[in-house]
């Protein structure tokens, strides 16, 4: 009985900590403006929509990888999938939860777009360094 209580409490708290942790990763990028070229490529100007994430990730995969982004993207990707799962299961019975999940998914997409901007800048620098005599 005690083990069941500990298990249930741990899982609920883990979910809360995980969501807050992912939000803390995303929060910093939410205020960052997108570079013009990213806005043109992704079609995202001020705010992203919930379904933009996969498209931006595809664009991200075309750019050379920045080692600094890798772990963050993995965590946010896992968070996006968790939100997708919540949206297609529990949120079916609670419309407010669906709206919340969509807002969060949009923030994930914006985070990915900011990362895309950083990768483009990184690729440019890399190219510039190679062009130097």
């Amino acid at each position, binding site marked *: 009985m005690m083990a069941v209580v500990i*298990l249930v*409490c*741990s*899982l609920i708290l*883990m*979910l809360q*900590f995980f969501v807050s942790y992912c*939000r*803390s990763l995303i929060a*910093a990028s939410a205020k960052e403006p997108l570079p013009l070229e990213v806005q043109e490529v992704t079609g995202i100007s001020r705010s992203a929509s919930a379904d933009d994430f996969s498209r931006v990730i595809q664009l991200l995969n075309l750019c050379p990888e920045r080692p600094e982004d890798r772990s963050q993207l993995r965590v946010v990707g896992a968070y996006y999938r968790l939100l997708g799962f919540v949206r297609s299961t529990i949120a079916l019975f609670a419309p407010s939860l669906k709206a919340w999940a969509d807002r969060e998914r949009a923030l994930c997409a914006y985070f990915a777009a900011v990362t895309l901007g950083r990768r483009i800048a990184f690729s440019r620098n890399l190219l510039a360094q190679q062009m130097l005599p």
Partner: protein
Amino acid sequence: MPGPLQYFIWFSCTLLEVAVLVCAYRRQAIRQYFLLNLYISCEVIASVVRFEILHHYGLLSLNYAYFYYYSDALLTILLFLALSSLYSQVFGELNAGRYVQFGALFLLSATALFSFAVVQQSSAKLLSHFVFELSQNLYFVGLVLTYILWAAILKLRETRTRLIQIVLSLGIYFSLYAANYALRNLYPSMESVFQSLNPLIGCFLPFAWAYAFWRIPDDARLEPSRLAVIR
């Protein structure tokens, strides 16, 4: 002996722990988060000694089992104290450091007494089972304390991003361990499966702390109310 994958996870975890110390040193955060870094240093030392014992006596030896569980209990106590140092940081402006230390010691003693009471009723190898029980209970108490700390962060509008990420990652780590221990108790026949998850869970904390020290500047701030799941 452990397989290549287990060795890989073990070494990666130890490397990540070393990375935490290097990042903290480079970002001049050793003193500010002294107990956290002390805990990580002890983790590295324990990992090296465990490897030595494993190499000499083997995985199934009593020497390895005793050292593993006893060092794990000591490390959990140290992590518990590291958590209390985070409390001191959050409540620093309220001059509540003394009360926090007293509270932490009281909870530690209460958990030890509770664990002893549980073990005394049903165990022949009292000390060994006590050590295991204490670790398990401390993970759960640590989880509850981390949640209270998180609530305090939200209430006191603590804005230090690095501190927030350290607390949140500690919460994830404690909850993963507590859930794993609970599953081991619920399904004793699958103990080896759940036990093999321990090193993997152990990698999360040094990974998140290394990230927090390396990537988040000390002066970075964020609005904690944006992070709350329940408002």
